């Protein structure tokens, strides 16, 4: 039972994890992105359509990354060189994503593909309790494990990562050091968007191999909240995504076993968790121990420097 629960937790958490990691990259460079929900849908449709027409899941994943990368570049263009309002641009991106996928997804509704298969890692997959959840998953889940490490390594152990964090914390200082703030921000937004797109593709390629309008069903907004919960760090993003996935998986399984818990309490669980997240992160903010990048949400213009 625990094995199955952990397995369901990882699977439910993975799309949110990809989206949160992408959003962390955005915000580490100082750009807020509320377009996550729209980008997930764009990724989901592009991933499905790519797989449907090419017959290859890998090409599908690549299509998802590229489509979300391109869509993310709209947000990057507005917020970086044009220094537009990041909140407005992000919301517009979400609306754009919902509309454009509804329009172009018409032909894909009702089509079917063969979804991502599980790959059991020899030996490890037989481990008790965690074997099934961690080592008997599909390729995208393995990639998400590696990505969590890679993003940490990139941000804290590479020179470019240091530059990116500086751009997010204090763009003027980064500029003084000869770092191109615009280039860093642009690439962080677009690459992050690409990762969000893969999160969307996980929905349409692995979780439920099909395309239906609005299939992300609010997961993008959960990712936006989890960025704050994670304190902008990739391993805590993993914890948050699995906590969220785990709560859903757990309450469904409690019901399936036949425990007679009030449906109202079950319904409240995800929201209670959301409130807890907000409380904890607000306390951290007041203590001054928040990890929020100092330059978050502020457009940078060299001429404005004080």
């Amino acid at each position: 039972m625990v094995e199955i629960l952990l397995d369901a937790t990882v699977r439910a958490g993975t799309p949110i994890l990809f989206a949160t990691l992408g959003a962390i990259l955005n915000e580490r460079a100082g750009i807020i992105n509320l377009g996550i929900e729209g980008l997930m849908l764009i990724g989901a449709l592009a991933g499905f359509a790519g797989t449907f027409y090419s017959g290859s899941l890998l090409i599908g994943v690549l299509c998802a990354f590229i489509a979300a990368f391109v869509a993310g570049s709209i947000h990057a263009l507005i917020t970086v060189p044009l220094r537009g309002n990041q909140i407005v641009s992000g919301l517009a991106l979400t609306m754009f994503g919902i509309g454009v996928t509804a329009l172009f997804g018409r032909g894909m509704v009702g089509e079917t593909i063969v979804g991502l298969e599980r790959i059991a890692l020899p030996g490890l997959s037989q481990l008790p309790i965690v074997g099934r959840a961690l080592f008997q998953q599909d390729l995208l889940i393995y990639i998400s494990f590696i990505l969590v490490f890679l993003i940490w390594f990139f941000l804290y152990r590479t020179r470019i990562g240091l530059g990116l964090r500086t751009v997010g914390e204090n763009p003027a200082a980064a500029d003084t050091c000869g770092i191109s703030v615009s280039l860093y921000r642009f690439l962080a937004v677009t690459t992050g968007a690409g990762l969000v797109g893969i999160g969307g593709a996980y929905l349409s390629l692995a979780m439920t191999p099909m395309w239906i309008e609005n299939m992300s069903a609010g997961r993008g907004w959960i990712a936006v909240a989890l960025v704050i919960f994670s304190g902008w760090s990739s391993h805590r993003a993993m914890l948050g995504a699995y906590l969220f996935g785990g709560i859903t998986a757990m309450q469904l399984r409690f019901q399936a076993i036949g425990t007679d818990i009030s449906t109202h309490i079950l319904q409240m669980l995800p929201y209670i968790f959301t409130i807890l997240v907000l409380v904890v992160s607000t306390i951290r903010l007041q203590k001054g121990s928040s990890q929020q990048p100092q330059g978050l949400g502020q457009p940078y213009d060299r001429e404005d420097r004080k």
Partner: protein
Amino acid sequence: MKKTMVMILVVLLAGFTGHAFAQGKQVKAGFVYVGPVGDAGWTFAHDQGRKEMEKLPFVEPSTYIESVPGGAESARVINGLVRRGHNLIFTTSFGYMDATIDVAARNKDVVFMHASGYRTAENVGTYFGRMYEPRYLSGMIAGKMTEKNIVGYVAAFPIPEVIRGINAFTLGVRSVNPDAQVRVVWTQTWFDPGVERDAADSLLDVGADVLAMHQDAPATLQAAEARGAYVIGYNSDNRRFAPNAFLTAPVWNWGPLYSHIAQAVHDGTWSSEQIWWGMKEDLVQLATLSDRIPADVQTLVNERAEEIRTGNFHPFTGPIKDRDGNEALASGQIMSDPDLLSMNFFVEGVIGTLSN
């Protein structure tokens, strides 16, 4: 977040010739949909009905507006349809009830029909279907097909419409297999493919070998297909999502009802009423049965279907016990429509959470 983009499509039909010869009133109908016509479910079924209605000679090309959120937005959309000269407006989701009544109060010359609600007015009628009838029949099939005697049911919200479906289904299951149980998992959403899939998986994990559902996405079908179980769909015939697992589905067939209402408006005989049609009027049906269902079971189900159609059998006929063993309906009695519409208990054989 609901859809923000509203697309308006006017479907053009050849055949304006109806004009010249029509005796009564020309009918120009407008439809307000809660989802996209491509949802392969609820809205898709309504749109099929709309197309069938358009075949009537006195019906002008109709208009539909997709993915309209309930509340204030829907009032704006309904008003727009009135302004553009529609004289018969169908609002196809529960969430449009108050908006429909409000707009109708200011436009007495337009006929409004609201699906699944309970508020009426001089120029507002309601309509819905007795989906519990085909649900009962699909339960009989599930009861015959389960080997482990555990049937899973992925359900959206604990409201009377869904509870009625679960109970009818369970009565059907136990009419042919008194040892079987129906396990219910609530997803608390009409539409979230990921959660629906997980709910279906959780039922398969506890040993269910036949699944049924009351959801708008076909994720439950995929779950059953992937794990080699059987599945009963809902809304429309979605067997392409589960070519091996699909047994049948209780489905909507709005065409006859929409044509009937258009005819009444045309003839000037329309009056406000609460329509609740069933299998007799062909508003609800069972999708073509899969070849995997043995012939004797098919015969059994078809015979029962005929009894329902002719009015000789009602799924909610006593004795019916609730799941605590108390008598819910005395022997020989048939449950009244008000009781059916406000149903809030599980019958014997259902395992699931339900706070009364």
